[in-house]
């Protein structure tokens, strides 16, 4: 008999309402059906939409969107089964569920795996999943799917065939796998606590959801009382709660909290509006509980959003401040470079201007002292020596300033030639001997003959003068000894003094510009902190190196300079 003829004859006199909008009709006798179907369907659609809006496209996001959409479709199709009166539509829609249900389970297992392991499954596994889908695909249109339409009563139900038992078996297997896999992973101590918590939450959400879902469908199928299945969808709020918590707490699926808040707010309004549907009298308590649940979730989310906004605003202000500070620093840096350049130029000019007169002062003081302009009275001897010494120190300082100026402007030139390093050392010792003698210091020299090196003789002399002069300046009593030796390819000069010594923490910075050892001022007030810096620069410019050794404050020091031997 043609099904339409059968309905027309209305043998059972079923009072079926027509469902012009597919989902809305009085045929839906059970009050919880709308609640249990519309809320999860819309929740799924909204979540899929929120995840889809994210710019980043991760496999987990794709899988989640697919899962949410497939589940929403399932809910809407199932609702059609409750609402529709046409047997052909019911048969078609019911048989279509055989494709969607396994897809939901497989997508969930796939999602859990990728989320946990953070890589895709192998192609073999994908192919295996494809194979599990083949029975529904091949047998879907046959009587193995739906055997018949049951018109022995007015419930508008199809009679499920053996294919559904295969499906239920598959669902139970996948759910069990998810439970075992999720539990095992969340107890794996080699993973971080955060990851374990995330996997644990996702597993709880999925398990709760699928146990309720499978249980509802299987019991409905076995008992033919499909009103039981409506409770199976109540696992959805738990799943939803777990997913939203994951998103907010762990930034899973990279969704902004604001988006999720909008989602929860929309769901809350939706649930609230369902309260006013006429057909749901007995479902009101359940809806009220769900409203409270979503209310709490909403409160938690709003707080998170507030925090997020505050942090973003603070970050924005900090960024602006940082940019402005950066610009100021850049400006200051440029200005400083200009000033540094100007300083070097000024130093160079001023030093040149000072060098000529101080040379004249030195020269004439020496000439007078030596009696070239007549006999020098005894009482003038000491003042003349003081003038000579002061002029010598000043000339040295001017030479240091000039050298620094040349080094910093990159104008220092080295005119290298072969000369006897030992001879040069002897000359410098000889020149500085009167100063040591005046301080009652023993200046000894252990210098062999003929230590040839290739370097700029003027610069090397400056180095030796600075080092020996320095040793004399910072030694109040005792001795200063100078030793020259040839070691393989280097000529080494060691100046050992019994002076103030250097604390270990100061050794590293002694050759820096304007740096002096602590307490150096007490021994020598005229030091500028440039002598050692210049000596180091000049020694390195000649291919050599310079360093200092000391056993500590008050224990003397050893300055060593090495230059490449010929």
């Amino acid at each position: 008999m043609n099904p339409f003829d059968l309905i027309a004859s209305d043998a059972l006199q079923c009072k079926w309402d027509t469902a012009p909008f597919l989902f809305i009709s009085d045929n839906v006798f059970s009050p919880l059906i709308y609640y249990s179907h519309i809320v999860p369907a819309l929740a799924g659609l909204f979540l899929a939409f929120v995840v889809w809006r994210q710019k980043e496209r991760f496999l987990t996001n794709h899988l989640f969107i697919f899962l949410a959409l497939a589940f929403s479709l399932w809910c809407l199709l199932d609702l059609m089964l409750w609402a529709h009166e046409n047997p052909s539509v019911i048969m078609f829609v019911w048989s279509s569920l055989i494709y969607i249900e396994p897809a939901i389970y497989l997508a969930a297992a796939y999602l859990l795996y990728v989320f946990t392991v953070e890589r895709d499954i192998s192609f073999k596994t994908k192919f295996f999943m494809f194979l599990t889908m083949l029975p529904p695909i091949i047998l879907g249109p046959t009587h193995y799917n739906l055997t018949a339409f049951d018109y022995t009563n007015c419930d508008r139900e199809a009679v499920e065939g053996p294919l559904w038992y295969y499906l239920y078996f598959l669902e139970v297997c996948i759910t069990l796998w998810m439970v075992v896999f999720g539990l095992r992973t969340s107890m794996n101590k080699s993973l971080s606590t955060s990851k374990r918590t995330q996997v644990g939450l996702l597993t709880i959400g999925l398990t709760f959801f699928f146990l309720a879902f499978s249980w509802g469908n299987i019991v409905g199928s076995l008992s033919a009382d499909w009103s039981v299945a409506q409770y199976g969808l109540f696992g959805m709020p738990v799943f939803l709660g777990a997913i939203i918590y994951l998103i907010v707490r762990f930034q899973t699926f990279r969704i902004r909290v604001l988006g999720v808040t909008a989602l929860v707010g929309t769901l809350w309004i939706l649930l609230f509006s369902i309260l006013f549907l006429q057909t749901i009298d007995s479902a009101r308590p359940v809806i009220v509980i769900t409203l409270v649940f979503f209310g709490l979730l909403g409160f938690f989310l709003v707080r998170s959003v507030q925090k997020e906004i505050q942090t973003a605003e603070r970050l924005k202000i900090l960024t602006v401040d940082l940019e402005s500070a950066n610009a100021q620093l850049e400006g200051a840096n440029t200005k400083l470079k200009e000033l540094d350049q100007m300083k070097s130029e000024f130093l160079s000019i001023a030093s040149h201007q000072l060098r000529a007169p101080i040379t004249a002062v030195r020269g004439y003081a020496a000439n007078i002292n030596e009696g070239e302009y007549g006999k020098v009275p005894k009482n003038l001897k000491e003042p003349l020596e003081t003038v000579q010494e002061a002029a010598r120190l000043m000339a040295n300082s001017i030479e240091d300033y000039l050298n620094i100026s040349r080094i910093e402007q990159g104008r220092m030139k080295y005119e290298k030639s072969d000369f006897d390093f030992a001879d040069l050392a002897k000359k410098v010792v000889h020149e500085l001997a009167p100063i040591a003698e005046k301080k009652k210091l023993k200046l000894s020299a252990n210098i062999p003959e003929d230590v040839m090196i290739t370097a700029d003789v003027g610069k090397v002399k400056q180095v030796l003068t600075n080092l020996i002069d320095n040793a004399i300046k910072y030694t109040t009593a005792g001795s200063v000894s100078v030793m020259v030796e040839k070691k393989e390819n280097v000529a080494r000069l060691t100046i050992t003094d019994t002076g103030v010594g250097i604390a270990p923490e100061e050794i590293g910075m002694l050759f820096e510009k304007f740096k002096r050892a602590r307490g150096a001022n007490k021994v020598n007030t005229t030091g500028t902190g440039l002598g050692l810096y210049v000596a180091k620069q000049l020694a390195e410019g000649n291919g050599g190196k310079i360093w200092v050794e000391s056993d500590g404050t008050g224990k003397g020091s050893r300055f060593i300079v090495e230059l490449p031997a010929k």
Partner: protein
Amino acid sequence: MATVDKKTLILGIVLLLFIGISVSVTFYRYMVLHDYVIFTDPEEAPELNIANPE
């Protein structure tokens, strides 16, 4: 994070194609041909109606 490779894409397309064909056949069978058995006699299907015996 993994991206979709070519083999997976082909497998997915084949799966969707198969499902599409299967759904189309089902649609044609039920919605166009109305080709399905209808149980009208409770004796015909005694295992049914456990919950709603009326």
